[in-house]
């Protein structure tokens, strides 16, 4: 019997059908360095999944940094949930960030604090969040981390940290989910759970962008690739529907 998905209870996310993420000729890079991402254009509606592929260093993480507003475009425009982020004052940009769940490739944690406290951090930061500690526990239970909730985050394995980062990204039920290489090192069983969670979030209305070096089995969405800094739609879909038996 499959574990129940912890996010099925409340499906009131992103009611509008505007593009959740819109990139229009966005060029980005770091400090005075060269452009990493050149003229990226993408339109992602609520509930859509985009898999960004490309070799290491292609610019997948840069794209995610652009979407999570940590990187300002050198050229072009980034529109999130209907707002041009370049025109937003800092307070509004922070508000947009609270609606984005981001799981980094190498996630940071408050290593001295418990796994539970780390995953609950988004709920503490956003006082308007409707999620509770029980939601945190449900999510951790689904990902097989129940026994580790009271352990310091610093004591977790690399795979557990990846799962915990995903849990933290999803716990506040964001409108945009960004996952950077979420399956790296998590184990086969957890891979299925991660894919199910991401799929479930998209079903609830979140726009999901996943960066990975290659295809992810079971993740149903559009495939994009970055080649020479340019984002382009992959000619073939390598995504397969989730195998219900898994």
């Amino acid at each position, binding site marked *: 019997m499959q574990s129940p998905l912890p996010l099925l209870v409340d499906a009131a996310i992103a009611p509008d059908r505007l593009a959740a993420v819109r990139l229009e000729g966005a060029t980005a890079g770091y400090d005075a360095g060269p452009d990493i991402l050149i003229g990226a254009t993408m339109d992602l509606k609520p509930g859509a999944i985009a898999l960004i592929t490309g070799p290491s260093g292609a610019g997948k993480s840069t794209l995610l940094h652009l979407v999570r507003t940590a990187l*300002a475009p050198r050229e072009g425009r980034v529109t999130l949930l209907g707002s041009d982020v370049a025109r937003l004052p800092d307070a509004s940009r*922070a508000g*947009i960030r609270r*609606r984005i769940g981001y799981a980094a490739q190498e996630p940071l944690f408050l290593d001295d604090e418990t796994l539970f406290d780390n995953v609950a951090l*988004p709920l503490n*930061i956003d006082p308007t969040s409707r999620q509770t500690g029980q939601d945190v526990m449900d999510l951790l239970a689904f990902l097989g981390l129940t026994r580790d909730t009271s352990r310091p985050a610093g004591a977790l394995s690399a795979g557990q940290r990846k799962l915990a980062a995903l849990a933290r990204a999803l716990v506040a039920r964001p409108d945009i989910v960004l996952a950077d290489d979420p399956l790296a090192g998590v184990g086969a069983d957890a891979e299925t759970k991660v894919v199910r969670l991401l799929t479930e979030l998209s079903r609830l209305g979140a726009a999901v962008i996943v960066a990975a070096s290659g295809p992810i089995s079971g993740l149903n969405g559009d495939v994009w690739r970055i080649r020479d800094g340019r984002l382009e739609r992959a000619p073939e879909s390598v995504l397969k529907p989730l195998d219900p038996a898994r």
Partner: protein
Amino acid sequence: MLVSFLRPWLFVSLAILIAAALAVALGVSGLNARAADERARVASAFTVRVLPPAPEETLEKAVAALASAPGVQSARPMDATRAAQLLSRWGGGQINAADLPSLRLIEVRLAAAGDPVRTPTLLTERLRTAGVAAEIYGAGPADPGRTASSRMVLLAGAAVCAALLLALWFAAGAAARADRVRAILWSDLGAGRSATLAAYGRAGSEVAFLAGATAVILAVLVAPGVRMAAGETISFGSMIASLSPWDVLIVLVTPLAAAATAALGARAGAASTFDQADRLG
């Protein structure tokens, strides 16, 4: 509380810094009070010289006349040792009391600082009425050992206190920078800059206030012991009673000033981390 700086190393460091600042501030305050006392003493004291030739009883008559004059707190004959001490201070050279002749000097202390022109006139008239011929002098120069605190000491004390507060500011900032992962995560998770800085400021002020209060309590407990070890006979009650209004103000303000300084330091430390995390490129 999402941010807390209540860590032993930071608490102890801040308590030591604050205790040092408190000791300097109270020390300067004490020196300043002593200097003010000395200046007041000089302003309210006069020396009367009974002019020769005059028998011993003329000196006694003069003392009685002066002691009963309005505004005079005390009038007493000056002994040779005291005279030698004052003359040494005045003239600069060492004077031996045994070498002095009978100077027929009387030290007069007023109840309040007297008018430097009018008071000698009044005292002279009083003595003349009593049939005593005398000259009136000011009390002489203030004791430099007691007035040394004036401006330079105040400035030096203020500079030391400022340096200690700066160290406190840096310590709180360092604590905030050491907690950089939290600021990065907060930035990523959409906490506003002002909310983040406010949380760090609260954490800084909390630990500094507690460290400041601890330093004050320790100072209150330790100071009588130190003074007793130095040979003073002092009780806890008499030490409290000896505190000037400035001392009380310093004691009350110290934890608050420490809290405000640490809050600013923690905010500055968190701001640099938050801003770096907020914009990567």
